């Protein structure tokens, strides 16, 4: 069979065709590394015409590559073992002055005597592939370098950020000092606004005391003074005096300039404490203030004066809002309730004219006010007080009737073990 095949002329033609047309460089060299046969593709790779190869040595045809190729050819001859995928790089005449890459497979053609007679060679030009790889590697290296540069930048940035954060903390501390001052100014200011109201609150017991005292004097002027009634009068005087003292104490607490004092406080009690201070204004505007308090409210950790400041601000705003109504008079609903498990919620709702939707997002910003002559700081201060306490404040409103401010203070944290 093999005999037949060997002499089959069509098979010889096919092989010749394959040798000439296969898209790969092929050649046969003898034991002296002279070209015995070569196809056009390899001639093109080597950059020399076919006649310049035949009978000449690898050294003569490829002076720049021979040092890499010849020892390997010799190895195939000496060992009769093929060499697969052997990569050679260097200059050829087809691309003078350019380094190119070739991948060769070499295998021996062994004679009947058992010795290697020829070396068959298949060569592929893999320059494009290698260059792509090199480009890729270089770009990888470039990327890695960029990454390391960026990393350094990031490290620097993060150091800057840390420095910035430290600066912020200092600024925050300063702001909180400023805030304490501002809150003080605001308290003093709203106390100024409240002065008339406070004096009303003081004048009631003072009027009762004076009238009682003078009534007692009249009784004493009689021949047989009614001592029982005089005793009652003196008791009433003492009670009204205490009541006046209470108002003064409230006033003093609001005027004190203390740093934020964390105390365990009950919000329902704080709200009750504020009511006498706004009572007169409420009466003046014919406003009823109704307070509803949920049972068993837990205490919160807060600065009582600042929280009262918030409540007072919200109440005064609500009274002012109702005062702007045509209908003369209205209601304020104050509710103190549980805010889930984490806090206590206080809402102050009025049935005043409400806040238009486009203004409602602005109300906590400084210098935003709807009140004539208002400074626009009241709600800003409320918000900063709640921020400082880890609380929140929000508002909802429906024009034309009413708006509702809500604030939440977090519960007193259980003491650390």
């Amino acid at each position: 069979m093999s005999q037949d095949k060997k002499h089959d002329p069509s098979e010889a033609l096919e092989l010749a065709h394959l040798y000439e047309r296969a898209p790969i460089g092929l050649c046969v060299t003898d034991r002296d590394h002279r070209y015995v046969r070569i196809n056009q593709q390899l001639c093109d790779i080597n950059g020399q015409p076919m006649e310049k190869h035949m009978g000449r040595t690898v050294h003569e045809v490829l002076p720049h590559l021979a040092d890499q190729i010849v020892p390997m050819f010799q190895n195939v001859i000496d060992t009769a073992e093929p060499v697969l995928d052997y990569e050679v790089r260097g200059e050829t005449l087809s691309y003078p002055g350019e380094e190119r890459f070739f991948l060769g497979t070499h295998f021996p053609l062994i004679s009947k005597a058992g010795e290697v007679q020829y070396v068959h060679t298949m060569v592929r030009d893999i320059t494009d592939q290698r260059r792509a790889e090199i480009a890729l590697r270089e770009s990888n290296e470039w990327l890695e370098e960029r990454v390391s540069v960026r990393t350094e930048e990031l490290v620097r940035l993060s150091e800057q950020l840390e420095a910035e954060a430290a600066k912020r903390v200092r600024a925050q501390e300063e702001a909180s000092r400023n805030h304490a001052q501002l809150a003080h100014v605001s308290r003093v200011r709203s106390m100024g606004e409240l002065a008339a109201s406070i004096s009303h609150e003081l004048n009631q017991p003072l009027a009762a005391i004076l009238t009682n005292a003078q009534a007692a004097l009249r009784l004493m002027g009689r021949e047989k003074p009614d001592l029982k009634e005089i005793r009652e009068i003196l008791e009433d005087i003492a009670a009204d005096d205490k009541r006046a003292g209470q108002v003064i104490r409230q006033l003093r607490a609001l005027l004190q300039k203390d740093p934020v004092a964390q105390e365990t406080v009950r919000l329902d009690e704080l709200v009750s404490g504020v009511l006498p201070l706004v009572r007169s204004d409420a009466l003046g505007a014919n406003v009823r203030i109704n307070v509803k308090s949920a049972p068993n409210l837990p205490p919160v950790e807060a600065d009582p004066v600042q929280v009262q400041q918030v409540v007072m601000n919200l109440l005064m705003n609500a009274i002012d809002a109702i005062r702007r109504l045509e209908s003369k008079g209205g209601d304020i609903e104050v509710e103190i309730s549980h805010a889930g498990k984490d806090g206590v919620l206080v809402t102050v709702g009025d049935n005043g004219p409400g806040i238009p939707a486009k203004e409602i997002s602005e109300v906590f910003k400084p210098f935003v006010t709807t009140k004539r002559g208002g400074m626009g700081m009241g709600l800003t201060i409320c918000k900063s007080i709640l921020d400082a306490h880890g609380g929140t404040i929000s508002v909802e409103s429906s024009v034309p009737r009413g708006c509702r401010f809500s604030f939440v203070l977090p519960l007193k944290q259980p003491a650390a073990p």
Partner: protein
Amino acid sequence: MNTAPQVYLIDDDASVRKSVTRLLRIAAYQVEAYSSADEFLETCRMAEHGCIVLDLRMPGLSGEGLQDRLRTMKEALPVIIITGHGDVQIRDSMIKKGAVAFLTKPFDDQELLDAIEAAFVRNRREVRERSERNGS
């Protein structure tokens, strides 16, 4: 019918109500006290002779509102204002509307008693004028 003049005291502050009532009783006046203008309008059958001692700031109908209401009545009693607010504007407007006196708390007992006496004088004159008009 010659009944003793009646003082109607309207003030929402319990201490003020109690002390003023006490003073006026010691000074031998007949006093009825009310805690709001609304309560006064609803329950009081005003005597012909007397006066009204009226606080300004109260829940519900204010003292000013009550005075406006009284002015629409034919046989209203004269009004004395007692207030914790010494607001000059309100004072002028109340006096213009016919208040006999405008007293700022705390006030002297004699000031109030004088004002009440002045109110009684005005009340007697008004009653007389009314009866003369009706009689003629």
